[in-house]
């Protein structure tokens, strides 16, 4: 933790958003509060403000992504940034160029921000040491996905009015999930009680020291929960011997309407997507009135606008008016 004060933050300290681990509670709140104003922009007939006019943002995606990449791209366009997308399959990475060389070449064209998704944990840290441009982590390996956790927190706050004191249950493939790591860090910093639940084969060893309650009992995880956050079960995990079959996974851990009733009556259902209906979540749950899954997607744009604005446009404060 960094030296923190109680005073509200007015800017982010770093040039990058590498992970929730690097953010103070005040910085998290600043992003969430800024996102409120950004969300309003999206309700206007002309959904565009000049805040990042003249700024160049490169979205560098080494892993396939629909939701996150689209969300960043819309956020950049609503802020009037000049943005472009590079997908690994169309870049010189396939010709054997290293990440460092790719980054240095992009850097030579003086972008203000690089938004990167990459399959290697720590790749954004690596990039931040060799680039002057700010780095936004759009998901690095199994490490962090900070904007997802921020949009999740924004969504919880929108529905519950607070985060402190809430019980949040996170279920699914905990071991391989960057969404989990960012969420546990963020929710702990904002004072929630976090329970994580999955089969022991998918629970990272040593994770309890982060402050989350770890269990394989759905009943304990869901009891009195204010929010249920489902994580995607990757279909290829069966081959790794993590569980016997998708059918059995659903039998033991699938989120059914009956299980949802273990939580508080006003519980909200969340999922970062993409969903596997009938594996980790039943359609009746995903589509129920208390599901906020599509709110998460909508809020993703606002939260990413806030992050982009605070990192690239914060100095001028020329406004979103």
């Amino acid at each position: 933790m960094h030296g923190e004060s109680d005073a509200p933050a007015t800017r982010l300290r770093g040039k990058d958003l590498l992970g929730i681990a690097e953010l103070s509670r005040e910085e998290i709140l600043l992003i969430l509060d800024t996102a409120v104003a950004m969300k309003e922009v999206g309700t206007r007939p002309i959904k565009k403000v000049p805040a990042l006019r003249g700024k160049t943002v490169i979205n560098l995606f080494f892993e396939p992504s629909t939701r996150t990449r689209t969300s960043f791209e819309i956020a950049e366009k609503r802020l009037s940034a000049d943005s472009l997308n590079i997908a690994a399959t169309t870049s010189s990475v396939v010709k054997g160029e290293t990440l460092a060389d790719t980054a240095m070449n992009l850097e030579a064209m003086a972008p203000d921000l690089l938004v990167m998704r990459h399959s290697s944990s720590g790749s954004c840290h690596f990039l931040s040491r060799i680039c002057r441009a700010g780095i936004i982590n759009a998901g690095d390996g199994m490490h962090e996905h900070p904007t997802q956790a921020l949009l999740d927190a924004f969504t919880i706050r929108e529905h519950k009015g607070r985060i402190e004191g809430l019980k949040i249950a996170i279920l699914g493939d905990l071991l391989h999930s960057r969404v989990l790591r960012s969420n546990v860090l963020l929710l702990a910093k904002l004072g929630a009680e976090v329970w994580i639940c999955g089969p022991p084969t998918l629970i990272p060893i040593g994770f309890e020291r982060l402050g989350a309650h770890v269990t394989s009992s759905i009943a304990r995880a869901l009891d009195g929960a204010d929010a249920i956050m489902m994580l995607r079960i990757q279909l290829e995990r069966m081959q790794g011997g993590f569980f016997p079959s998708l059918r059995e996974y659903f039998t033991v851990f699938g989120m059914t309407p009956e299980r949802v009733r273990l939580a508080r009556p006003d519980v909200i259902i969340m999922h970062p997507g993409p969903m596997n209906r009938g594996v980790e979540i039943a359609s009746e749950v995903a589509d129920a009135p208390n599901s906020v899954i599509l709110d998460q997607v909508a809020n993703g744009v606002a939260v990413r606008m806030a992050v982009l604005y605070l990192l690239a446009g914060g100095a001028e404060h020329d406004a979103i008016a």
Partner: protein
Amino acid sequence: MTRLLKGGRVIDPAQGLDGACDVLIENGRIAAVGRGLATGTAAVVEVPHGLVICPGFIDMHVHLREPGQEHKETIETGTAAAAAGGFTAVACMPNTAPINDNASVTRFIRDRAAESGVVRVYPIGAVTKGSKGEQLAEIGELNQAGCVAVSDDGRPVASAMMMRRALEYAGMFGMPVIDHCEEPTLKGEGVAHEGHVAAVLGLRGIPAAAEDVMVERDVVLAEAFGGRVHIAHLSTRGALRAVRAAKARGVRVTCEVTPHHLVLCDDALMGPKSYDTNLKMNPPLREAADRDALVGGLADGSVDAIATDHAPHHADEKHVEFDRAPFGIAGLETAVSLLVDRVVHAGVITLARLVELWSVNPARILQVPGGTLAVGAQADLTILAPDLAVTVTPDRFRSKARNTPFGGWTLRGGVAATIVGGRAVYVNPEAPGAGAFATE
């Protein structure tokens, strides 16, 4: 040529010696050790105050990369690094390209060492052809060509049956089987010690159990089928417990630990050097409890040797994402300073015990000359400067490699000079008075 080293502190555990002594060197061998030796015709070297004369340190686990990976290191640069690190001999692992699994590769290494080597080089041959674990290498021919041990280092001998055969067969030649203990399916694609740190950083874990289970297997096999097993770079408290228990039952097992596992633990991967690929090695940096157990093992005798696992890599190879970087760090030129500062000055062991760990025991395990300053022994000497202030400066390494996590560290203790066969192969210009050891 005859030289008399006069007046230094001499530590030779083999002779029970630790005190002010003279050492007479004649024709590359020790001619006399004692107080007030007559000068005769010898050239006198007045040993500067504070320096300590030890039998030459032997690093029994290095990667010299030649043949085949000369962009990382060569026998010339690797042995120059060894000399600068205070080592008079190194044993080099067979995972070169081609692998040292037959006598012609061994002869190449020995020839190159004779041409360009700065210190003595003892090749280690492969256990199995291509280190693939499928068929025994020609261990008898490797032995005749000069290999002092066999190992598939970099990989374990995964099959228990193959390990049994290797122990039995290499035992016939009195050679130890050095095993890189890691159960491959438990290790999987792991890149860091499985625990809190790897969980938080999202790095795939290598559980301690992957090492423990293999060490337990190896001591059971050595107990059941004979032979001699040496555990390379032991890194977990469980593995140490297995070795200690096996020794108590009389199993012929020995083990080494590396300086980095004695000094660092996995939490170094967090904080300002997060994801530094110079902290990626195999076995990985373990937890504090493991490190503390290893340090304890130095003191209580259950650890037999310190070995660097010197693993030079080109800077480009390490300048990549963490999980794409190769395992290993350069160790030869930081090892002595790390141990003297962090273990000897910390009061864990004496300098005499350090000499056992780095000279007496490696010579005994590999059955090579050295480990003593007894009359008639090769005049291989490591001259320590235990109070020398050292700043680790990778750009000044003799090694081609710079892949160390210790750059910028300031340590107390270093090497004043390294003498092989009576000839100074390294004199540290920063050690006051060390110039006296220089030979033409």
